[in-house]
């Protein structure tokens, strides 16, 4: 047993049949169409209301031809030297009236860019006097005005930037695959999903924030570190894990790193301290919980729970320790499962994530003990449980992309591996967090496969059901792929 969270292959296996069957795809398309239709109807209603209001205003003006405002409008129409903004206002006003006869609806993309937060109507119209004032119309104006081709890399199209945040010319230069598409639309359709920046400043800021989050500019941390290897019956792989831990500790400059082994000395990999835990503490979460407490007793401040089936990259420990130091040693930090990362979402700048885990997990000993340690009633989902509790207590949950822990995870979708133990663990997790509907659903699934849900033991810990997030099933986070 390990304290690994659900593996990529499980996540893939659970999603693939649902996500990609023709029926599911058709349902997905249908639901998207429904959503799009609802959005369009809402937009249409708003526009009709605006149009009715404009028509009413125009009618009032037309019926009151002696009004001072109407005379002013007529005078401006005749004027040769009109002020651009006034001219624009007038055109907009007249267009609103004309619209009752031949409305020209803005393209659907106008709503998209308006809702993106990257189109600032006030900022845009202030720099484009001929643009209509209404936000949606201004967005439509932007879509018509931003040329899609014919600009050299050196062009500075500041006048057509949709907001001070989005640098149109820079984005176009940085992304030559944009073709003839409007840069902002390209960003919203592709760029934001592929972590592209919206300006040179944003790119530099993100990179600086990453450096800070990773602790790259800090002096090399030298904490009291203990590494616990999870139980394993394969001495060769456990020996490799132990050897890699020693190498990585040496690379990190740690001279007194403790390397703990839960089994007896006779079965211990070279270089480890055997704790010879009782048999009932030899499954991963219980073993790591005990090793964490032993590490605390021996003066360690940080503990790394590592799967003995995997091994550390030489630079793994330094990367983890730097990130921990950057977070003031108040974060749960999962190393990157290499080469097959778990598909859960990770913020590409702060590296915050929904749960920390995987085959290698760094824990701040004091805060984790204050939380009650690892839950021995759980197996593969102990890290998810701990992450939820840690967030409740204000700890940060991070994934360190520079810390590679090599695991034996199989390729996603290539195995018929089913995880009855994983379902059982899910049942226990749901019960511990008081999520009875989830527990009932998992229990039904377990029984359908001929199993019997196991009741968790008495829970000494207080858990807030509101923090348990089952919205992504057993992935516990949106997928990044």
């Amino acid at each position, binding site marked *: 047993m390990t304290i690994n969270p659900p593996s990529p292959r499980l996540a893939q296996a659970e999603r693939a049949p649902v996500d990609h069957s023709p029926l599911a795809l058709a349902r997905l398309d249908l639901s998207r169409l429904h959503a799009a239709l609802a959005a369009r109807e809402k937009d249409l209603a708003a526009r009709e209301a605006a149009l009715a209001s404009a028509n009413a205003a125009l009618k009032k003006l037309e019926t009151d031809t002696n009004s001072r405002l109407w005379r002013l409008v007529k005078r401006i129409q005749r004027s040769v030297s009109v002020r651009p903004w006034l001219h624009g206002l007038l055109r907009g006003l007249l267009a609103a009236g004309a619209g009752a006869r031949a409305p020209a609806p803005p393209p659907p993309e106008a709503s998209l860019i308006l809702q993106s937060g990257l189109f600032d109507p006030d900022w845009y119209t202030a720099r484009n006097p001929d643009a209509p004032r209404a936000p949606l119309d201004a967005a439509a104006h932007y879509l018509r005005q931003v040329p899609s081709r014919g600009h050299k890399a050196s062009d500075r199209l500041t006048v057509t930037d949709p907001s001070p945040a989005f640098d149109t010319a820079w984005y176009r230069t940085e992304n030559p695959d944009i073709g003839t598409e409007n840069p902002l639309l390209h960003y919203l359709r592709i760029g934001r999903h*592929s972590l592209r920046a919206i300006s040179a400043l944003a790119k530099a800021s993100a990179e600086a924030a990453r450096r800070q989050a990773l602790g790259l500019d800090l002096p090399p941390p030298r904490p009291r570190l203990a590494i616990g290897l999870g139980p394993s019956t394969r001495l060769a792989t456990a020996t490799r894990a132990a050897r890699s831990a020693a190498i990585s500790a040496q690379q990190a400059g740690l001279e007194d790193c403790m390397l703990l082994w839960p089994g007896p000395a006779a079965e211990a990999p070279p270089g480890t301290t055997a704790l010879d835990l009782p048999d009932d503490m030899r499954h991963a979460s219980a073993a790591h919980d005990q090793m964490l407490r032993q590490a605390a007793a021996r003066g360690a401040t940080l503990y790394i729970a590592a799967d003995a089936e995997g091994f550390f990259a030489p630079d793994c420990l330094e990367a983890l320790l730097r990130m921990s130091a950057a977070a003031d040693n108040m974060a749960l930090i999962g190393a990157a499962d290499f080469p097959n990362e778990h598909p859960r979402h990770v913020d590409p700048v702060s590296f915050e994530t929904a749960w920390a885990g995987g085959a290698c997990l760094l824990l701040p000993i004091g805060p984790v003990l204050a939380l009650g340690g690892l839950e021995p009633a759980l197996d593969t989902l102990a890290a998810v449980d701990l992450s939820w509790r840690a967030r409740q207590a204000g700890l940060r949950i991070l994934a360190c992309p520079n810390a590679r822990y090599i695991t034996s995870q*199989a390729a996603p979708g*290539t195995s018929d591996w089913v995880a009855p133990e994983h379902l059982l663990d899910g049942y226990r997790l749901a019960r511990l967090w008081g999520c009875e509907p989830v527990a009932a659903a998992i229990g039904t699934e377990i029984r359908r496969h001929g199993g019997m849900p196991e009741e968790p033991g008495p829970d000494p810990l207080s858990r807030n059901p509101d923090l348990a997030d089952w919205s992504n099933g057993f992935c516990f986070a949106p997928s990044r792929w």
Partner: protein
Amino acid sequence: MHDDLSDAVEVIVRFHNPALFEELSGALLSLIAQSWRPLRVLLVTQRFTDAQSQALEARLAPFRAIDPSVSLDVVRYTREDGLADARSALLNAGIAEARGRYLAVLDYDDVLYPEAYTVLVNALSASGGAVAFGGIALKSLAASTAVPFGIGFARLGRLPGQTLVDTFRDGFCPFHGMLLDRSRIAKADLWADDSLELFEDYEWHLRLGTRYPFSYHALDNIIGEYRYKDDGSNTVPLRLSIDAPRMAIWRRYAEEIERRRASLEIAPAIQAGLGIDPPLQGLTIRGLLDRLDRGEMTLRQQAALPQRVLAYASAEVGL
């Protein structure tokens, strides 16, 4: 390390720039993690100076120490003549050093999953093929100097294709998805064309494919990743436009590949495997493709790709 290399998988890793060690480290780690033993890595360096070679040895030391059962040998290619990009010559240097039964290639910036060679050896054993291919997923990474390995954001499935004819049409099998059984291939046929700066892997597949049986049964298994970084550093950049000089080189080598299609004749045994009975004398790859395109020939039904691979390949995100 194992002295007996009779069942060894030997992997040629070509490495041309010492500054790219971070990416090389990923390839090496994925090899150390392989479940297959014996395993020997032939790291072929391109024109490294003595100082660069010494620095490389120092950086390799901890990788060697992780698992001594993996042999990690550096092969220095130092010849200054020939093409600036000596990728084919590096392959030949690695082949010259190989002594085991199985041979594979892994580029320094790609990775394999731990079971890759076990899957491919089993595919060779089960099929009797001389060359076996496994599935390689395409993964997109955002480049970042703070994260030297890149930040993964999309998995794009794999390149479409499933048969030898698909290989004849286009190169859909990345080099590191291949394992060949040297006991089933004549030594004289194991060479890379050092006149090519591009498509040397595809030329290899075309040439061997006309003479030796290929197994595609392991395409069902995704055994590794082809990693696209968005800084244009791949040989085949994903999103950055190719500039005119580079495009001209591409066109030149694409034309060269087409000339190979027109000249490489498909051996009768391979034709028989495709269901061409009796075999056509002098049938070239181009001749076969033209006949197929004109509807003048139908081939034996090829095994359909398993549904789950199609589902995986279609799991496109974002792009």
